[in-house]
């Protein structure tokens, strides 16, 4: 289990991670989702004690990383595949890592076998392809058979076969009861990999929720409906308490109505009951990417416009140049930021 409390990292005036609190539970794959530059890697480095937080703490099974006796036996991490000396062989790299935490040397051959690198174990790691390097990184993470595992963008640059392999592999790790924490900037990838999601934007927590709930919210369905008597149609639908939006004529076709949070059945039946003629009735689903951008809306860029000398790095949302809160409505079952924060107070 990983618990972060008010985790903050500042580089000069830039706030990379801002008062982040979350919990990662064992036995599940938890996705760490956010656009590039949202602070995912920084957070992971803080979890692993590589970067010192400016404020807040993060604990792994109740202890800070630097307090762990033989950390590789408790936490396995793949932050970047290329953290290997290019002139060292894969086996030598694993051998010294194993030796540092008194992991028996035969474990090196075991993990090489697991990731399928036995054949190239004696070759220089510098000559490895990205997929092979990634496998070596995973072998490193597995060395100490740890209960907590962190992967930073593990499928980046992999071919489909490699992506599938890693996805299955993480599910297996979680099924074995381990804590698996995977970061990604792709919601579509996380939808297939993670059961839980921690979503951040600009270093701040946007949501901690189940993947299913997040996707239901993200891919909010709408119904596009069109008929000769648009005004009456509008009245009937709003009369039933549905949210209706006018869509002017454009590339998608003639002017129509967009009914959110509804189904074609519902809209069709309502129109039929009052005898309205329909020319078009279609379900519309926004793409996950669209929804993700909308949700993390404006949280993508680095906030260059933060006022100079803001005390304690006041949240970027308050600065004039930064956009306000995410625009997407938070669905039921989703803990909003403040709820999470309040609930964690000890």
């Amino acid at each position, binding site marked *: 289990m990983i618990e972060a409390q008010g985790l903050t990292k500042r580089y000069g005036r830039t706030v990379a991670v801002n008062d982040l609190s979350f919990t990662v539970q064992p036995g599940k794959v938890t996705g760490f989702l956010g656009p590039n530059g949202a602070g995912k890697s920084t957070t992971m*480095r803080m979890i*692993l*004690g*590589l*970067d*010192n937080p400016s404020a807040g703490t993060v604990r792994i099974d109740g202890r800070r*990383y*630097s307090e*762990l006796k033989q*950390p*590789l036996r408790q936490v396995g*991490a793949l*932050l*970047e595949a*290329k*953290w*290997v*000396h*290019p*002139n*060292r*062989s894969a086996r*030598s*790299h694993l*051998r*010294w*890592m194993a*030796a*540092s*935490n*008194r992991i028996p040397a035969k474990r090196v051959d075991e993990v090489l076998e697991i990731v399928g690198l036995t054949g190239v174990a004696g070759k220089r790691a510098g000559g490895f392809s990205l997929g092979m390097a990634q496998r070596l990184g995973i072998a*490193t993470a597995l060395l100490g058979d740890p209960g907590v595992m962190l992967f930073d963008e593990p499928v980046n640059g992999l071919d489909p076969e490699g992506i599938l392999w890693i996805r299955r592999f993480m599910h297996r790790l979680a099924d074995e009861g381990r804590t698996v924490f995977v970061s990604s900037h792709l919601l579509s990838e996380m939808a297939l990999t993670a059961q839980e999601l921690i979503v951040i934007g600009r270093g701040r927590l946007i949501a901690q929720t189940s993947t299913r709930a997040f996707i239901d919210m993200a891919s909010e369905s709408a119904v596009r409906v069109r008929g000769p008597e648009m005004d009456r149609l509008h009245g009937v639908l709003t009369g039933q308490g549905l949210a209706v939006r006018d869509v002017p004529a454009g590339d998608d076709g003639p002017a129509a109505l967009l009914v959110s949070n509804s189904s074609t059945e519902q809209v069709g039946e309502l129109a039929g009951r009052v005898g309205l003629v329909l020319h078009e009735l279609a379900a519309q689903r926004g793409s996950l990417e669209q929804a993700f951008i909308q949700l993390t809306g404006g949280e993508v860029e680095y906030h260059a416009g933060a006022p100079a000398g803001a005390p304690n790095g006041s949240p970027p949302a308050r600065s004039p140049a930064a956009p306000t809160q995410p625009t997407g409505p938070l669905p039921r079952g989703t803990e909003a930021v403040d709820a999470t924060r309040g609930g964690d107070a000890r």
Partner: protein
Amino acid sequence: MTLLTVERIKLFSTRSPWWCMILATALTVGLTSIFAATTKSADLSTLTPSVTQFAFNFGLVVMMVMATLAVTTEYRFSTIRSTFLAVPTRTPALVAKAVVVALLAGIVGEITAVGSWGVASLIQPDAPLGIDTAQEYRNVFGVGLIYLLSAVLALAVGLIVRQSAGAVVIELIYLLLLENLLPAIPRIGDHIQHWLPFTVGNNFIVAGQPETDDGPPAIEGMPFGPWGSLVYYAAVCVGLFVIGLILAKRRDA
């Protein structure tokens, strides 16, 4: 002990340390053998043990480069992060690295020193190359100690600068230029010279040697005797290393 094994594996599983060791030995022993072979029989009486060590700085520079690279390549390839993941308190891993690298440099230093002296004795068996006095012992066998301490210093610079080219350039400019130029400053130059670390370290080897030597020059009026000089030099090297440790502990990896 575990961490010493780790650093040993790390050091010897890449090729550059081997090249550095071979180069250091070949340079010093090679230059000394040329020197011994070209010594005219009339000058044979001046070929003393200290003269056989005239080239030790060449090997020393090479071993300092090796020590620097032992830490800067870790930063260059981010293996320092793997190291700190394995040993999150950081200091023990870095101390282990210093011990392994310094011991290796010390051993190479002894090999080059004894090798240089030995090859000179082989080429010129009639030269006065016997090692009898304490000064002569220091002159040959002391070289390894200077290598050992200099490796700690080079490692410290690498730890502070964290960048191969930068660290090596700083070391070379300081060792080869600054320590030779600072004494040229009028009036205060001589006083500065007496406290320059490499000059003082060198004094451990050359103090009290006969003046007619072709070997590394002895400097008059040094504040410490030979062993005092060694302690002073050690203090500088270890002090710098401690600064490196503190920085490594504080900085984000």
